[in-house]
């Protein structure tokens, strides 16, 4: 038998206490005034024969209880040969996490990280179980615990080093929290082998923007330790980064950037410059008088919004370089210029109506040109020849008059070809033409003239064209008045969706089927309605235009590591082709997203052919802004979140290799398995209960006798 904590046996000396208590049982219970002490002498406390005989059992029980307690605290265990042999297998279970995020690519950080991991691998013993996990935005297991165990002991280290040598830092951001959770879950799993210690060793720069905050809500498994190996940057490096606030087009001279500086920055002045060709020419291009360069002053730890320098003509790649800091990996920002879209509206209107009572008076103000689109409104009557019905330049048709046969024929083909149209029913006769256009059997159209005026009663705010109004501040549609409108038979358009309806339920604005046709039952002429002077009219019509055109004004900001889908790019198609910089095009659907790996200008198009023919949309992919926050994370915050971070790493590893420590470890394992102390405690408890019972009965008896003596 052995003891885990033999010093506790010294507590067994407490067994002398009951003996002493029994000896001094007759110590003074109080003070007694007496007439004279001239006939008395001091009595030494001693045990009378009578008391010894009476309390011997109690003494034995009390002594036994104390001995059992001391024995239990000493944590005894039996050391058998078989168990000792079994214990030889006990080893650590170590998950080595290596940071491969973009920030690790700075200078020699990656080499130092690899060196650190190699050093760790050298220190593991044959009984240890190791898992090598690379992490950036997601954790990627290079070698699992099972793989490690299956490998021959002699090959383990070389295999791990080989895997490590294939590894390179990516351009993704760091998700330290998720990686730790992944590793902790792995370690918390039960293992068939005996484990002396569960440990996560994290080799990382522990940057501030490493997204560890998810750990706050995670219950850290018991017994799993974290050992940080910090690949520190050289003292107080200055890092600054520029991020494009919003995408812009080539005509926009006011590209705005947010320039951010690190907390420990030594320098406060940075330069922003468009990269003309290659980075090699950077030195030559920088001069204080260059118009393509902007100098910006940002104090440490602060950020500033600045205008980007003017984009020089003929710039193919829109790479904005930031210079003046020490860390280079995040100094390039990519900007994808968006060419303004051309919108051509073919208008079928009454040529005689030139005043505010006619539609054409307001058509141009309704669809103004903006920085992202160039709107051209062409009157059918002004055309010299009938345009090709498949002309892609014509975006939309706007029908607001009685059309002749030729026009109806052309429009019918146009609608059938999928070109969107807005049909404004200005009269009953003109309204009837919609049936011709859609080639459906006509139904009567009724002219409605309310007594005073009609108002909008129902609004379908779920429709994409109306969703911008889905806010209590903008959802009031009661201001506009209608003095007359046309009522269509609802059964005529079974697949129609009413976007706006009058108070009596008659629709004002309908989207008919998938034919990209919008039917308005009232026009915006001033004698028919107040639409033209209604504040929501222009946004409403432009919303309809965008909806029909399927045009996206602004693409989202994309970062390396994002999952690209057609939905993310607001594409109406469920499938697009995407080409990463310097990479082959691939097909991307909503179900099979593509994870962005490289920063740069990516291209996407509806088909592979469009991509190859240069009809692609460009989109900028940048490093995640958080990756630039390279100041060291506050470890106090990590510890406050409940992470068991150990610092004395080397000392612990050295201790592990010590044979004395391993013997201690083995003993601990044996003891924890046998748990003899629990039985000893139980025995002590039983003895104490017995003692209480006996003592109580004796007390009662002696209490009676004392009382009788006193009385």
């Amino acid at each position, binding site marked *: 038998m052995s003891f885990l904590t033999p010093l506790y046996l010294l507590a067994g000396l407490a067994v002398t206490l009951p003996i002493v208590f029994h000896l001094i049982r*007759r*110590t*003074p*219970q*109080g*003070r*007694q*005034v*007496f*007439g*004279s*002490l*001239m*006939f*008395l*002498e*001091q*009595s030494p*406390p001693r045990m*009378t024969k009578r008391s010894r005989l009476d309390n011997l059992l109690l003494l034995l029980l009390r002594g036994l209880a104390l001995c059992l307690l001391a024995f239990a605290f000493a944590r005894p265990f039996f050391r058998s040969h078989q168990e000792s042999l079994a214990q030889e297998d006990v080893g650590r279970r170590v998950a080595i996490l290596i940071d491969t995020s973009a920030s690790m690519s700075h200078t020699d950080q990656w080499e130092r990280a690899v060196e650190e991991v190699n050093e760790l691998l050298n220190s593991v013993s044959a009984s240890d179980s190791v898992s090598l996990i690379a992490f950036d935005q997601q954790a990627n297991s290079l070698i699992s615990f099972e793989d490690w165990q299956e490998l021959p002991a002699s090959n383990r280290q070389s295999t791990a080093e080989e895997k490590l040598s294939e590894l390179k830092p990516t351009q993704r951001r760091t998700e330290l929290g998720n990686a730790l959770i992944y590793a902790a879950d792995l370690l918390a799993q039960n293992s068939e082998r005996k484990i002396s210690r569960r440990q996560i060793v994290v080799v990382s720069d522990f940057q501030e923007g490493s997204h560890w905050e998810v750990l706050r809500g995670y219950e850290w498994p018991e017994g799993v330790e974290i050992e940080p190996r910090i690949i520190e940057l050289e003292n107080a490096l200055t890092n600054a980064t520029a991020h494009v606030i919003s995408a812009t087009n080539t005509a926009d001279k006011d590209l705005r950037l947010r320039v951010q500086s690190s907390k420990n920055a030594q320098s406060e002045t940075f330069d922003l410059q468009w990269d003309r060709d290659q980075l090699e020419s950077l030195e030559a291009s920088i001069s204080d008088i260059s118009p393509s360069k902007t100098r910006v002053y940002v104090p440490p730890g602060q950020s500033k919004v600045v205008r980007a320098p003017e984009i020089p003509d003929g710039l193919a790649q829109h790479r904005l370089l930031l210079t003046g800091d020490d860390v280079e990996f995040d100094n390039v920002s990519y900007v994808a210029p968006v060419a303004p879209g051309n919108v051509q509206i073919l208008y079928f209107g009454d040529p005689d109506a030139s005043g505010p009572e006619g539609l054409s008076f307001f058509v141009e103000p309704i669809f103004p040109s903006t920085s992202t689109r160039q709107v051209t409104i062409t009157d059918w009557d002004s055309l010299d020849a009938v345009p090709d019905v498949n002309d892609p330049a014509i975006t939309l048709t706007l029908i607001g008059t009685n059309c002749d046969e030729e026009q109806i024929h052309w429009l019918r083909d146009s609608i059938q070809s999928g070109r969107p149209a807005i049909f404004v029913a200005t009269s009953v006769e003109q309204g009837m033409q919609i049936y011709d256009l859609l080639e459906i059997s006509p139904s009567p159209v009724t002219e409605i003239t309310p007594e005073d005026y009609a108002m909008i009663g129902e609004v379908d705010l779920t429709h994409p064209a109306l969703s911008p109004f889905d806010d209590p501040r903008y959802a009031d549609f009661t201001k506009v008045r209608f003095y007359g409108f046309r009522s269509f038979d609802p059964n005529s358009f079974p697949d129609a969706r009413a976007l706006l309806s009058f108070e009596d339920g008659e629709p004002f604005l309908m989207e008919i089927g998938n034919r990209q046709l919008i039917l308005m039952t009232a026009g915006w002429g001033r004698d028919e309605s107040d639409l033209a002077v209604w504040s929501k009219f222009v946004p409403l019509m432009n919303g309809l235009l965008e909806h029909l055109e399927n045009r996206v004004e602004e693409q989202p900001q994309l970062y390396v590591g994002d999952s690209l889908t057609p939905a993310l790019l607001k594409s109406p198609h469920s499938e697009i082709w995407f080409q990463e910089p310097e990479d082959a095009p691939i097909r991307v659907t909503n179900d099979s997203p593509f994870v962005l790996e490289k920063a740069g200008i990516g291209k996407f198009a509806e088909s592979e052919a469009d991509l190859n023919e240069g009809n692609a949309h460009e989109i900028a992919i940048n490093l995640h802004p958080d990756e630039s926050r390279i100041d060291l994370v506050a470890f106090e915050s990590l510890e406050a979140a409940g992470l068991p971070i150990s610092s004395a790493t080397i000392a612990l590893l050295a201790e592990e290799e010590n044979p004395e420590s391993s013997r201690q470890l083995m003993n601990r394992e044996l003891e924890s398995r046998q748990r003899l102390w629990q039985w000893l405690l139980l025995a002590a408890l039983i003895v104490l209960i017995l003692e209480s019972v006996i003592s109580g009965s004796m007390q009662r008896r002696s209490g009676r006798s*004392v009382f009788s*003596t006193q009385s």
Partner: protein
Amino acid sequence: MPSSSSSAPRPYPPPSYIDSQSLMQIKSLELRAKSVVEGLMNGIHRSPYHGFSVEFTEYRQYSSGDDLRYLDWRLYARSDRYYIKRFEDETNLRCHLIVDNSRSMTYGSLGYSKEDYAKTLAATLAYFLTQQRDAVGLLRFSDKVDEFIPARFRVGQLRRLLTSLESAPEGTSSGINAALEEAAERVRKRGLFVVMSDFLTNVDILQSRLGYLRAGGNEVVVFQVLDPAEMSFDFDQPAVFLDAETGQELFVDPEQARSQYQRRLQEHLDQVSAICDGLGIYVSRLTTDSPLEVAMLDFLETRLRVTQTRRQ
């Protein structure tokens, strides 16, 4: 012959006597004294000790040879018998009560102390003697003489004595030897000295001091007042015993110490008895649970014996 007391149990008192504990419940010392005396006087008439009192012992018939100066002519005129008037001279007794007021007397295991008992005894004697028209004085002492009231028979003497007895003790230790010496010096006329003390003190020079009193032709009666617990030492728990007089502390296990204590106490008592016997002093040893009437009867008995002895 002067008789000495013995520690053997007495055949009396009969149960009709007032219980000491009940008596001590009475707050007024005077009332206590009256209760004892009157109870005793009532009892005397019925008791076999009829005639033991001072008054009754001093009346006797004329016999030939008696001095005619002492013939009570007034009584002769009424009864036509000759009675010797001598009793007036004899009954003009001068009695001094010497009461120990030291701290050791404050001990008591029955709810009242030896001092209470001694005071009551003194008050009873004073009252009784005053009733008998005797002159009574008082000497209270502790480590020194606290108060001395010469023996008088006059109005207010009893009140004065009782007031003095009720006053609080002043000293600490017992200076019985000094008190006896001073009593012998102050009291010039012969008389009776009744000493009430526990005599728990060094008895080396007690003999000489008592001897002073006796040498002056005085009668001395000693009441040694002790608590029953002091006699039996029947404590059952070990405790730190605190000396009431000196403040000395001593851890004592009664079971161990009892036999030795009793032996030493008995030796001491024997010494006191031996000293008194040697001087012809009557010693009455009283425990505080014994009725005061016993003490009174002891006193009267002693007086009777003294008178008889003298008469013989």
